[in-house]
């Protein structure tokens, strides 16, 4: 969420902190800070509000209140602590069908309104957080939402039909097949008609039973405010967060209002939002306030929680006094009474997240500061048990790596197999692998072409992973081991199975076991889960050699080219010497020099090398590589070595 620092100051008053300092404090004690940007004499702070704080802090007042807590300087102006001065109204009636879905609904009437451009200060406020100004009434609803976190909606009262001299608003579930016409995206003037399936909560014009908005999700086009509007009805309500979220998600409507309703701001909030918008419309649209209908069917209960100071300290690893803790909780806005080691704390009404003792422990910890918590290494104990699977898999891993195999991790998803997921990422990933053999075959195929680049003669890989299949119609899984060999880039040569057999024999030897593998075309696979019970119990892990320091390099996605060079050198010239000359001459596009062979004949030695060229930014051309080879040949000739 974008927060304007100037806007925050409307609540905090003049601060001694710079925007950066304020953001740092909030980052350490309250929220996640994504970034800061200076715009036209203001600083915009991008804040990620944690899910448990989205009910009270998705707005400027909420963030300002948090800053006040952290800095211990009370807010200069707190709109949630001025009791709303609203008067009852008998010309708007609200009927709610489901109390749980909508426990509160308020609607205010203002007359003599002049719809026009918003004043500059308001436009600037909205623009600073990326909102477009539309007109003074719509802007007022947006402003109050970003100020207090309560979404609002404005209707033209003259376009809203009356029955018995009253406006009749209702909240009810949709009937399948009903339609509602919503405001188009980005304030465009076009119809967006949604057909409803019956699970959506609607706001309706009860006089005609017409759906006029998707409750909590998006307002409708019905009775929209326009340039000639003079009488407005302002709605501020509370809807069930799950109903809102499900409808919003299903229809793909995620807007500022729905995001707030989904996080369930306090149901105490609507009158405060009404109070603020009434003041605003009176100021910027010359409106005259008539009154407010407030239907509040199920009140928010305040929760008093018993907090043991011993427990606070024992969970946080601190040693604060009861007075210190009570003072911190009071800074948060809690009502606290302390009796000895027990405090009774009630959060401020807008903090609907403070419900159990641990919630208050967290408040004490984060406001006091987690930096005060000292590191304590738990007393060292002996291991309770050795993980047999891990022990044996490490044994197998080490063995296979010794044999020149590389471990791969392939995807658990496949295009077609036994177990299909209910919801897939993509059509080519909708099944789960039932074995590793197919994946190993694909990885061999893929890697067989890289042997030159990698400087490996053949391709040997293995994988250890979970596989899924149905057994008696129920999804079953086990850990599988598979390894495969490929001698030639062109494909399975027929000679691989022999190597596999040898490896299996050696493995069985090493483990004193008789593991049987399924072997197919140079790939062997076995069920580790099934095997484990038959293996001897273990008492200690084998020592682990700490990982060597590796500087990983990203690899090029462009094809490599290989060129061989062989030469006669004089007696006494070493391979290292030749490699040095080659190294100096090959240039940056040569990524690997592999020694191929060496033999001596008639007092002369022949050395052969394979050079691999590759660019990380483009595909190399034959000409380019030929040019480099020429330079290499020249360097070799200078040494009086004879290129063969």
């Amino acid at each position: 969420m974008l927060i304007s620092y100037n806007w925050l100051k409307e609540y905090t008053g003049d601060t001694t902190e710079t925007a950066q300092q304020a953001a740092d404090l909030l980052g350490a004690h309250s929220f996640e800070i994504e970034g800061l940007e200076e715009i036209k004499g203001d600083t915009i702070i991008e804040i990620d509000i944690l899910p448990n704080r989205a009910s009270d802090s998705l707005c400027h007042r909420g963030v300002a209140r948090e800053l006040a807590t952290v800095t211990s300087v009370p807010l200069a102006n707190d709109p949630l602590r001025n009791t709303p001065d609203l008067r009852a109204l008998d010309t708007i009636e609200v009927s709610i069908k489901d109390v749980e879905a909508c426990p509160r609904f308020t609607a205010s009437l203002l007359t003599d309104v002049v719809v026009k451009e918003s004043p500059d200060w308001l436009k600037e406020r909205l623009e600073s957080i990326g909102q477009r100004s539309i007109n003074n009434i719509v802007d007022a609803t947006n402003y109050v939402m970003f100020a207090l976190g309560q979404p609002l909606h404005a209707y033209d009262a003259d376009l809203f039909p009356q029955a018995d001299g009253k406006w009749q608003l209702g909240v009810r579930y949709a009937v399948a097949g009903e339609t509602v016409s919503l405001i188009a995206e980005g304030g465009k003037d076009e119809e967006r008609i949604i057909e409803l399936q019956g699970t959506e909560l609607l706001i309706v014009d009860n006089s005609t039973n017409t759906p006029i908005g998707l409750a909590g999700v998006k307002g409708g086009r019905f009775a929209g405010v326009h340039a000639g509007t003079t009488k407005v009805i302002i709605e501020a309500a509370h809807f069930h967060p799950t109903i809102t979220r499900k409808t919003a998600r299903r229809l793909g409507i995620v807007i500022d209002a729905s995001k707030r309703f989904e996080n369930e701001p306090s149901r105490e909030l609507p009158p405060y939002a009404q109070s603020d918008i009434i003041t605003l419309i009176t100021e910027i649209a010359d409106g005259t306030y008539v009154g407010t209908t407030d239907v509040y069917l199920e009140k928010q209960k305040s929760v008093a929680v018993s907090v043991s100071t011993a427990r606070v300290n024992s969970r946080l690893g601190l040693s604060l006094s009861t007075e210190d803790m009570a003072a911190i909780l009071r800074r948060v806005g809690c009502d606290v009474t302390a009796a000895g080691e027990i405090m009774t704390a009630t959060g401020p009404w807008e903090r609907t997240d403070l419900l159990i003792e641990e919630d208050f422990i967290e408040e004490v910890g984060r406001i006091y500061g987690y930096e005060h918590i000292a590191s304590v290494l738990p007393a060292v104990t002996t291991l309770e048990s050795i993980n047999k699977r891990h022990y044996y898999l490490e044994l197998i891993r080490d063995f296979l790596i010794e044999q020149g195999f590389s471990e791969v991790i392939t995807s658990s998803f496949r295009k077609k197999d036994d177990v299909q997921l209910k919801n897939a990422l993509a059509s080519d990933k909708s099944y789960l692998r039932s074995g590793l053999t197919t994946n190993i075959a694909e990885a061999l195929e893929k890697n067989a072409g890289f042997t030159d680049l990698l400087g490996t003669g053949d391709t040997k890989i293995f994988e250890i992973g979970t596989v899924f299949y149905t057994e008696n119609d129920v999804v079953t899984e086990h850990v599988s081991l598979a390894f495969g060999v490929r001698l030639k880039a062109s494909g399975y040569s027929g000679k691989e199975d022999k190597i596999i057999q040898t490896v299996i024999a050696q493995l069985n030897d090493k483990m004193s076991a008789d593991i049987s593998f399924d072997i197919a075309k140079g790939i062997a696979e076995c069920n580790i889960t099934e095997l484990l019970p038959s293996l001897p119990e273990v008492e200690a892990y084998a020592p682990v050699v700490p990982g060597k320091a590796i500087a990983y390099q990203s690899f090029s996605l462009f094809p490599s080219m290989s060129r061989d060079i062989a030469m006669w050198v004089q007696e006494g010239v070493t391979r290292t010497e030749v490699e040095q000359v080659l190294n100096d001459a090959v240039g940056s596009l040569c990524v690997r020099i592999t020694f191929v062979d060496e033999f001596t004949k008639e007092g002369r030695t022949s050395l052969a090398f394979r050079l691999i060229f590759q660019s990380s930014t483009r595909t190399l051309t034959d000409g380019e590589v030929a040019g480099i080879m020429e330079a290499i040949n020249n360097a070799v000739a200078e040494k009086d070595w004879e290129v063969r």
Partner: protein
Amino acid sequence: MIAEINSIFAEIGFTFAEGPEAETEHYNFDQLNVPKDHPSRDMQDTFWFKDSDVSEPTVLRTQTSPVQSRYMESHKPPIRIIVPGKVFRNEATDATHEAQFFQLEGLYVDKDVNLGHLKGTIEYFFGRFLGGDVEIRFRPGFFPFVEPGVEVDMKLLSGDSKLTGKWIEIMGAGMVHPNVLSRSGIDPAEYSGFAFGMGIDRLAVMKYGINDIRDLYTGDLRFVNQF
């Protein structure tokens, strides 16, 4: 790398625990205090098995945390475990996110376990894993199965690697939520615990400076053979 992680945690008494990748909704969500209507249970975020293939609602586990609950049900405190394992999220893949990745879970439950023990344990692990002095800091965080919840940052104090001297976000952690303890048969009035979870891929990225997480899962030896 898992062997190295395990051996460091084994030094301070953390047992290697494991659980299934096809996990029931009960363990993956209910036992972890994830509300019934929580967005993470949606099809957009979690892979679900077909109802006809399972006896109760089952998902590809979205975290290694269900093992916490399984282990607590079958063991009495003191409990010290780590759980390395593959997890799945139904999200588009890019250079830093994969639909499947490896996570490392840690859990310590005993009398009077506090956030200081969490700090000490993480500091010890990273000091040994990265081979240098590290500093750990907590920031407020939120996960349904812990309260208080923290985001953990780490700074490598020694050496001259790319990581030295910079704060890096490494994991989410916190004190085990009392609902999680009591649902698993442990009395939260008597015991407390900390839990942490981090991407093992992230550890690899930190230790080796890998730039595209997807490379870990391609089975491409141009990548694999560097380790």
